[in-house]
């Protein structure tokens, strides 16, 4: 089965060039200016952009155990619609992915039912309780690409040091959700002017920063490689900059919502803006954008966190934290950053493909001869408006609901198979 994609503008070796792409089964067979070989299917991509399939190293598929929010099928369908071909699922499911059997279960379900490739991230501690080290090495044999207690944060510094030593021993990257529970308290939104106005408890940036500072020091001492998830504040960036300047193996990601929205988004008590870390000040947001441009921030990750309508339709302080990410990611970033000249398309695509893949050593994120046929095709003039009817995710908790966006993913191909067309 051969597919030929003709006349598109391809993100190839770091630049946009006109190329034809020939796919044979699940691999890219040829990339040339003009390909005339016969194919079973020819896609005319004239006027369209062809990117490597997006890679998301931070998402929640909620499967097993919380399938009322999302499951492997709906989650990966939504991912495919967003242009993703590889996603990494966080382990805070029910049961928690903290052992090899659980890892294999998720991988098997994804392989049988999924619309994109799913890589598994194992828990740092058993039951993500922050009490005992999980069986990281066995999970690594089972295929995990990193460990994280995401959604939770190991509060005990001594235990975290041991976890990082142990992870370093097996060269497993450690991803942290940085949050000091005492400092975060019962906080609901960023501890800033909107929290003061709305009378909601604040989550100060320092709750995130003290843990990042601690874990950078632990990384230096244990030689573990540390990846900071969803960085959100100016001072968190300062800490990561210092670590990188020292040559420490420290990296970080940013979410689309932290790049695009600030605390003001919460002013109408819209629970779809409630997330952790919270949407921070405009100063923080601008610093994140600058850091993404400069390369201080390594990549973009969605932190796709689906929650059922009835969970989000509660009083603000009773609703769960999290924003639905896959389907709005590219279009929201394209519309509000690239189309406005605040971020180059090259940087956006690198941050959603090759950069995250490289961080976790995934064979993904580049279009190359002999590589996996993971591709998405975008119509940059195409309009997208997410509605509760057209979203493929089971959950609809996105602040972009009903807001017109530009930059439509029209086709996604994963391992040579079309996983999304629209």
């Amino acid at each position: 089965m051969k597919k030929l994609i003709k006349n598109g503008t391809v993100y190839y070796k770091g630049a946009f060039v006109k190329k034809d792409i020939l796919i044979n089964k699940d691999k890219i067979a040829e990339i040339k200016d003009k390909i005339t070989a016969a194919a079973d299917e020819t896609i005319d991509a004239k006027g369209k952009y062809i990117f490597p399939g997006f890679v998301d190293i931070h998402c929640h598929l909620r499967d097993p155990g919380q399938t009322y929010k999302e499951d492997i099928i709906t989650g990966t369908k939504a991912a495919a619609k967003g242009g993703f071909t590889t996603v990494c699922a966080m382990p805070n499911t029910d049961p928690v992915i903290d052992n090899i059997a659980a890892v294999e279960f998720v991988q098997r379900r994804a392989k049988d039912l999924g619309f994109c490739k799913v890589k598994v991230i194992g828990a740092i501690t058993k039951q993500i309780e922050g009490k005992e080290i999980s069986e990281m090495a066995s999970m690594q044999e089972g295929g995990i690409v990193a460990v994280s207690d995401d959604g939770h944060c190991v509060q005990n510094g001594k235990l975290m040091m041991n976890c990082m030593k142990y992870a370093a021993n097996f060269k497993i990257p450690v991803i942290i959700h940085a949050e000091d529970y005492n400092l975060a308290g019962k906080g609901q939104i960023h501890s800033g002017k909107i929290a003061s106005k709305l009378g909601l408890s604040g989550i100060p940036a320092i709750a995130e920063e003290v843990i990042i500072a601690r874990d950078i020091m632990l990384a230096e001492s244990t030689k573990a490689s540390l990846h900071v998830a969803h960085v959100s504040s100016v001072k968190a960036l300062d800490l990561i900059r210092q670590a990188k300047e020292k040559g420490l193996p420290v990296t970080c990601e940013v979410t689309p919502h932290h790049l695009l929205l600030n605390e003001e988004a919460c002013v109408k008590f819209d629970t779809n803006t409630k997330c952790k870390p919270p949407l921070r000040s405009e100063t923080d947001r601008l610093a994140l954008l600058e850091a993404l441009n400069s390369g201080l921030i390594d990549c973009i990750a969605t932190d796709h966190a689906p929650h059922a309508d009835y969970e989000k339709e509660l009083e603000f302080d009773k609703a769960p934290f999290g924003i639905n990410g896959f389907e709005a990611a590219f279009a929201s970033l394209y519309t509000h950053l690239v189309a406005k000249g605040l971020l180059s398309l090259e940087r956006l695509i690198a941050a959603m493909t090759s950069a995250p893949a490289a961080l976790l050593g995934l064979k993904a994120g580049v279009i190359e001869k002999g590589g996996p046929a993971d591709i998405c095709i975008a119509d940059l003039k195409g309009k997208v408006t997410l509605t509760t009817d057209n979203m493929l995710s089971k959950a609809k908790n996105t602040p972009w609901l009903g807001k017109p966006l530009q930059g439509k993913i029209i086709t996604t191909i994963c391992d040579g198979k079309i996983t999304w067309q629209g």
Partner: protein
Amino acid sequence: MQQDFNFINRSVFDLDDYSADEIMYILEAAKGMKEINLREYKKIPTLRGKTVCTLFIENSTRTRMSFELAASRLSADVVSFQESTSALSKGESLQDTVYTLNAMGIDLYVIRHGSPGSPQLVNKYSGKPVINGGDGRHAHPTQALLDIFSIWERIGSIKGLKITIVGDILNSRVVRSNLIGMKKLGASVTVCGPRTLMPGHMEEVYGCRVEYDLKTALKDADCVMGLRMQLERQTEGLFPSLEEYTKHYVLSKDTIKWAKKDALIMHPGPMNRGVEILPEIADSSQSIITEQVANGVAVRMALLFLILGGKA
């Protein structure tokens, strides 16, 4: 004054939805209502056939009684829904509770709830006007209206007044709504309390002055409002003891001297006598604390009348 203000079916989430002129219009209406409350037969038929629901998910006797009296005096039917006897304690969501109540034909909701923004939710799910009777630390607009009414009635104008509010600013919805209303009407407001009980960004958000020292805060004040100091804050590590708080922030004969002579003394209640305010001040001739309570009924009558379109 313009006569074409339209309050029909508008919710009162907080005072920022209302202009200075609209606030003054409400105060004028409250003046008329106050007169009714002084009659022997304190009832007019204006809202006959309308149903008001007081939906109190957080305990409050005073505010609920004040609203219920206000509605009764306008001849509306009142039903009361309280957390302790309600389905909410059985795990029903606020959304379902509102759907249920709405099916019974409620015309207006008054809500008291611990969660900021819950009045907006009730409005969204009911499609009916909602008066916020206090939502967490966010807002308490009717308290602010009655406070402003009480000052206005005594002094005649709010513009140019120096008003100082002292106490647990962090946890006070009364302060937040008062700041919006008082600033709109041209007062200059100072908030005062220890740093641990002071939210950030107050100057930026409200255009008020922030002081941590009581003497500085009270200087030249025309009006001084004390706030209830809650013992729980001590266990939250926000201050070490009530004694120490009192020593630095109590409104007493000695400290009130720092304000203008005959400055009005106010308190939204319930008071902790001996903690944030001493009886010598609370019961003095300068105090208008009980007037505030009386005016609360009048202000709430005015709002119900204006929102539900009562016939004069």
